[in-house]
């Protein structure tokens, strides 16, 4: 799989540092899982953190428990995770998925439940050849393509590609005429959808 669109260095650094909103982070993680090069860059950025740890000025621990007492602490049961359905990114395993709901002709959406996220996260599945609703938004709209492809003025986005749009963008993706498209989206701020499809989608995006 050859990726054409990847997260910016700043986005990947914020992801590596654990500073992204969890909803945005989940969409970035779906891309990283699919892309070897981004996995390599993530490891490099994690090595930056390792170097910063080595360079950190030590601060003496309070006279708390000894290492031996800490090692003897009982282990809590680990959380069970539900296996993800076939073809879904593994990084979605910790999250609940809502049912697919049709929101128009040959277009469906399912919610991804990310507790504590400011961004709304959902998957969108669109049939071949249709146009996704023309829209503008005030915050971020980050997308990772899970299957198929879409195309807009910034290029073609196929499985694994990451589309990092902000308020500057105003676009109308066209779904691949053969494969259709399934993607995962995280949105912050509010979105103004336009056209008949937009009016259908509006109440669902603002869940």
């Amino acid at each position: 799989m050859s990726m054409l669109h990847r997260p910016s260095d700043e986005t990947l650094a914020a992801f590596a540092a654990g500073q992204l909103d969890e909803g945005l982070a989940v969409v970035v993680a779906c891309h990283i899982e699919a892309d070897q090069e981004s996995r390599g860059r993530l490891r490099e950025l994690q090595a930056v953190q390792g170097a910063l740890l080595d360079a950190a000025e030590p601060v003496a621990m309070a006279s708390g428990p000894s290492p031996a007492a800490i090692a003897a602490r009982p282990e809590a049961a680990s959380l069970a995770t539900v296996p993800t359905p076939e073809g879904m990114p593994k990084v979605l395993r910790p999250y609940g998925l809502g049912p697919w709901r049709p929101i128009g002709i040959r277009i469906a959406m399912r919610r991804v439940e990310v507790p504590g996220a400011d961004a709304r996260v959902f998957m969108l599945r669109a049939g071949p050849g249709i146009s996704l609703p023309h829209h503008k938004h005030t915050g971020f709209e980050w997308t990772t393509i899970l299957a198929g492809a879409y195309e807009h003025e910034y290029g073609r986005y196929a499985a694994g590609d990451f589309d990092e749009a902000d308020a500057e963008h105003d676009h109308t993706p066209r779904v691949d005429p053969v494969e259709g498209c399934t993607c995962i989206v995280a949105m912050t701020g509010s979105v103004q959808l336009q056209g008949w499809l937009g009016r259908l989608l509006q109440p669902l995006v603002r869940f």
Partner: protein
Amino acid sequence: MVPALALTVDGMRNAGAVAQGVRFIVLFDPNSLIAAIARSGDRAAFAELFDHFAPRVKGLLMRGGAPAELAEEVAQETLLAVWRKAALFDPAKASASTWIATIARNLRIDIARRETRSRLSQVYEILDEEAPEQPDAMLSGAERDARVRAAMSHLSSDQYRVVELAFIEGFSHQDVADRLAIPLGTVKSRLRLALSHLRGRLEDLR
């Protein structure tokens, strides 16, 4: 000048009587300490790792503005996770410092976002288990770390400071701007420049 001899930790332990006046530089070797914990639950090895890393994890978090109690809790939990997960440590994937830094990041997220039931640390763990990179990028953790450190040494001090702050919890770009008393746009461009510089150096070193 005092003669300095470098010894491995095992060598030091077996050295027995040490001549007066000879200063030994003990090479701190976290990989073998972690291996000793994995192999036999070696508590002395754990105490040594704890004494080295816990104050550094605490220091790193406090440098990022975390209160002492939180930094202390994350440091303790991080070393506890090192004790429990020692068998999972793979030096081919990351150096010990990098592995410990990522554990600290995950625990800091878990603890700071406890009330929101964050699952982000599980996402990082899943990504970490993902298949290896393409063969030409198959470097050992130590090699990758050495390259990253070499690349970091070429950053200007301004760039280094921005990278440092941007990587520490609680620092949004706006916070970094406030702390360094420079405009937000400058932070963004400095960080972008520093990261692309780092990336360029890493590609040269490949």
